[in-house]
């Protein structure tokens, strides 16, 4: 889906102003009615749990992500793991890494921390900046709007990867790397969300209840906080749900290019870089991080799609979701 299309659809979701509070129960009903979204949600929850419990899980396995096991690889053959499927067994649940013999299960679950943590933190940064600037542009005078909108245009027009590469290259290596990567992705990727928020705010502020608030003498800040933000929740949540998986792939790509988190901290992107030359000699080494990345992005995307549908009454009714009609038809 192109970003413009997503933006258009997302913006469309809020046109009829559903007061958020009254819509919450309906939202859950509509979300629960989508089986794919539920499965995806469960998977995301599981992944987050695995990431949080990484030290616990590896302790259970009796391994850690950085210890070398030279005896578990065949040194004479380039360091290919000894044993079938990359040395899978009771000690090493997913086998070991070629050349180093480091435990792949441990690296994979610790890698999940980096991948999910960085992606979610970056999403939060994007949402905060996007909402703030979007609302400010919509509520400010002509000059503020012009200035912020053009700035947003510039940010949207910038090639994300190249910007990120440049930024990551100039920051000294003493700066904590995962935080830096999250900040860089966050600082570059907020453009579209700001545009959506500005458009939505412009629509909302013409509505009667906002006008009423203004007439009763409320200040701009109070109006934004009490009257506008609840109306913005739906499109923002929807767009954020779609940003998270794309942020995961950006983090993986940056690590793949060698500017993400630094060794020995494992991340999926970094594992992919190290593994790409091994696709013939030790395929499981490549398949593990690739599979994990694929599942995570798929689950987050399906969940994001479910959230969007649940928040959009028209889409929900088109799909006959959460209306109870499906059950009636079956009966």
């Amino acid at each position, binding site marked *: 889906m192109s970003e413009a299309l997503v933006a258009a659809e997302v913006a469309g979701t809020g046109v009829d102003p559903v007061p958020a509070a009254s819509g919450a129960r309906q939202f859950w009903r509509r979300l629960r009615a989508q089986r794919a979204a539920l499965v995806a949600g469960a998977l995301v929850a599981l992944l987050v749990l695995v990431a949080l419990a990484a030290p616990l899980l590896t302790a259970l396995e009796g391994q850690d992500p950085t210890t070398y096991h030279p005896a578990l690889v065949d*040194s*004479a053959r380039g*360091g290919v793991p000894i044993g079938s499927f990359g040395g899978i067994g009771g000690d090493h649940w997913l086998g070991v890494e070629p050349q*180093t013999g480091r435990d792949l299960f441990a690296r994979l679950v610790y890698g999940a921390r980096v991948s999910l943590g960085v992606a979610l933190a970056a999403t939060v940064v994007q949402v905060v900046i996007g909402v703030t600037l979007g609302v400010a542009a919509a509520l400010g005078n002509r000059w503020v709007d012009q200035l912020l909108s053009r700035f947003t245009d510039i940010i949207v027009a910038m090639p994300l990867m190249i910007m990120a590469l440049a930024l990551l290259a100039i920051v000294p290596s003493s700066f904590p790397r995962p935080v830096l990567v999250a900040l860089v992705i966050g600082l570059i990727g907020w453009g579209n969300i700001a545009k959506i928020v500005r458009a939505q705010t412009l629509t909302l502020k013409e509505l009667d209840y906002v006008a009423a608030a203004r007439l009763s003498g409320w200040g701009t800040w109070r109006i934004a906080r009490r009257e506008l933000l609840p109306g913005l929740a739906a499109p923002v949540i929807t767009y954020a749900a779609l940003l998270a998986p794309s942020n995961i792939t950006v983090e993986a790509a940056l690590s793949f290019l060698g500017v993400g988190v630094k060794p*020995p901290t494992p991340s999926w992107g970094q594992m992919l870089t190290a593994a790409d030359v*091994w696709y013939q*000699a030790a395929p499981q080494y490549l398949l593990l991080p690739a599979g994990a990345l694929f599942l995570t992005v798929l689950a987050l995307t399906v969940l994001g799609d479910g959230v969007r549908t649940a928040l959009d009454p028209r889409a929900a009714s088109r799909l006959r979701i959460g209306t109870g009609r499906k059950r009636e038809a079956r009966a």
Partner: protein
Amino acid sequence: MRQPSLTARRVAAATVGLVLAAGAAACGPEDNDAKASGGDSTPHKGGTLTVLNANPTQDFDPARLYTSGGGNVPSLVFRTLTTRNRENGAAGTEVVPDLATDTGRPNKDATVWTYTLKKGLTYEDGTAITSADIKYGIERSFAPELSGGAPYLRDWLVGAADYQGPYKDKKGLSAIGTPDARTIVFHLNKPEGEFPYLATQTQFTPVPKAKDTGTKYEEHPVSSGPYKVVSNQNDGERIVLERNTHWSAATDAERKAYPDRIDVRSGLDSSVINQRLSTSQGADAAAVTTDTNLGPAELAKVSGDKELAARVGTGHFGYTNYIAFNPTVKPFDNPKVRQAISYAVDRSSVVNAAGGSALAEPATTFLPNQKSFGYEPYDLFPAGKAGNAAKARELLAQAGYRNGLTVTLTHSNAKDFETSPEIATAIQDALKKAGITVKLQGLEENDYSDKIHNVKTEPGFFLAHWGADWPSGGPFLAPIFDGRQIVKDGANFNTGLLDDKSVNAEIDAINKLTDLDAAAKRWGALDKKIGEQALTVPLFHPVYKRLYGKDIKNVVISDWTGVLDISQVAVK
């Protein structure tokens, strides 16, 4: 030995790196040759040899090439006074005569070297090669516009330090005499027993003055070797060579020149080169590479396939990867700390990180494990296979770090399996067992190279590597450990900042020897003596594995270059 000249040294370092990276594939000569050639192993003349390379041979001018032993492709076109012996293994580290009748006749203290040319030597156009042409070839390598060669000639020849080349200074170099058309005499400003090694470099190629076109000479250099340049596109990206009919095997004992035509294609991705050589289809069946090694993953695949495994050449090149200390940075000023790290290093995981036992041999000496370098086995701080953490802790306690120590290891982010993150993390893991917490500082390649070669920015603890311009202890040890070669405001290679009078004196004494075997023995002893100071922790010597096409015959890989020698290869 190189004198401190910033640009020259940088170029030197860079090119040595390149030569190496590109470098090598030599041989476990014993184990693969016979098998490789198999059935009808007699080489025959004819056919086209394709060379698939990653890096192009740029500036194909004998004045500008930086080679070890005359290079591989260059050596097919450019003959030199002496050259490397085209034999497998250790025999290939010897210097042998090429254009000259012998490897040079020194005076008593090795400051004057005299050579006589063979009879009947001609260029590709049939004109005779004279000693004046060799003199002219050397002189033009001093021209600023033809830079690129090694700095030795400028350092060694009498009165050459400020010479600007024959275009500006018509008088020429008085340090080189040509009493007659077949004799050439070199006057050096200090004793250099290793001059015959220097005379293998392409700067000793004859260049006919009448045909010299300055910077354009590289497009059509006049051949003195078995092949001439037919075309050279995009500065070495594709070089096509054909037989030089005026070359005669009667005057050249070294080059076999079996193929009629040689097609060098460069700028290819290394994985593409290895893939093409392994499938070996069409023209690739008669193809070799002179600069692309098998990586660990590729080796794992190849070693599982008998047909492919038989087509792998193994090469050794005098090269050492090591940890360097800067003793002016705390806590590395304390020899006990340096020794503790020497004991704690786990060479088996380092070797695995470098590609496993087939691609790296554990090193406990700074000198490469080859006789020509004067290799004398020693292991002053025995770490065993997996590191001696207990001994390391004991030394740290004596040094006052009873509760462990936190240090920063600087490395490059190059993907070379030499100074790269893989090696650094292997060391980090091993030192953890000895209570040393290692923080990693990975730098981009240029930044890394600038930092470690500048005395003002040199880190205390970093990964380094070194290879010499020819297989001898002199160029291997002197730049790194000669106190007079410390460069305060330029590219410095003496990273341990060692300035020990007895070491300096021994280096001078060995340079006077013209008996290279005797010199080698003393280099070996000197290496051990320096090793006691624990200024470096030798990690491993690389081994090169190279695939070649299935029609390739007569594979010769010397320990000098570690590379399959194209002048010996046959495709029929």
